[in-house]
């Protein structure tokens, strides 16, 4: 039992503080969502729709090919954004696999709408553009991977109220990253439109995405 990482009081404290920070961040996100969601929120939606589209911050990130991408000048149509890191063997592959399946379903239906997947790594220290590309290509070769400076990542995550916490490294130099499980729907005008909170249900997502992306004048 000597290997228990929680037996180190300093790590335990750090871990508790970090967990608390994430919890507080998510709590304030939920408060904010409650206050900002549209009054005309259709009851049948699993998504939380923002009453006013929220522009992405005026910062640039780096994509999986090493290109600088200004978030206000993206031209990718509708997109679903997920935040994670590649040292993430369970929830990130679950979500990226789900997004790939949803994209395929949406592309095959009558409207044939493409919903681009955007995976933002909040762990630029380990996730170089090359690693990001290998990771996202496995699920969907058309998806976009973004990462960048800590400042730019923080500008984006705080603007979207999606907190993350990077933990102190363990004795192997590995560290864990806590992140939101939420998906953000971003419109073709690079504004956040709606949130989906985990756990995600494929049928709900497809249902909502059809409605949310179907009646927009700029779609």
């Amino acid at each position, binding site marked *: *039992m000597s*290997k*228990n*990482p*929680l037996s180190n009081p300093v790590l335990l404290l750090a871990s508790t503080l970090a*967990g608390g920070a*994430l*919890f507080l*961040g*998510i*709590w304030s*996100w*939920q408060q904010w969502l409650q206050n900002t969601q549209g009054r005309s929120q259709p009851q049948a939606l699993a998504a939380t729709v923002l009453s006013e589209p929220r522009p992405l911050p005026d910062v640039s990130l780096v994509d999986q090919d090493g290109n600088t991408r200004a978030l206000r000048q993206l031209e990718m149509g509708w997109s679903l954004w997920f935040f994670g890191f*590649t*040292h*993430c*063997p*369970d*929830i990130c*592959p*679950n*979500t990226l*696999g*789900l997004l790939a*399946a949803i994209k395929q379903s949406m592309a095959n239906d009558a409207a044939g709408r493409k919903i681009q997947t955007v995976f933002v790594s909040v762990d630029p220290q*380990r996730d170089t553009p090359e*690693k990001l590309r*290998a*990771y*996202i*290509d*496995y*699920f969907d070769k058309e998806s976009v991977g973004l990462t960048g400076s800590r400042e730019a990542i923080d500008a984006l995550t705080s603007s979207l109220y999606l*907190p993350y916490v990077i933990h102190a490294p363990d004795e*192997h130099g*590995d560290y*864990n990253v*806590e*992140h*939101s*499980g*939420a998906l953000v729907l971003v419109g073709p005008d690079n504004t956040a439109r709606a949130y989906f*909170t*985990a*756990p995600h*249900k*494929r*049928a709900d997502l497809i249902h909502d995405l059809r409605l949310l992306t179907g009646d927009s004048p700029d779609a």
Partner: protein
Amino acid sequence: MILLLALTAACSSNDEPASCAQLSVEDAWIREAPPGAPVLAGYMQLGNPGSNTIDILSASSADFERIEFHHTLNENGGMRMQALEFLRVPAGGKLTLSPGAQHMMLFTPTRALRAGDKVTMTLMCANNESLDIVYEVRRYSAEQDDHSHHH
């Protein structure tokens, strides 16, 4: 909480040694990961037909640098990974490791693992017995999961 669990584990394993070998293993698999992925996840279902709790303290494999047990927790939308000191298979019960829940975290694969490959892992139980389990590498799709997991 963790400490309490650890204490009760120590007590229960003192009674009558529960044999690791009596565990039944079903659906042991490893999720095929993107090429070069530094960490993979393993899943399985263990059944304990005996009348004593069986605790698994560690796992090792020639195909990974090290293995930890983790639990993915969804806390109000925040995804958190909790390291587990051990896996517990209740007497007369089951322990299920599955995507989005408890899983084995497999660090630094020593070879590229593709769907269909087999990997042997050795589980060490509380009474110092070990159990070898063969895991199949599978390509996993969330779509399948949606349709197959109706509890």
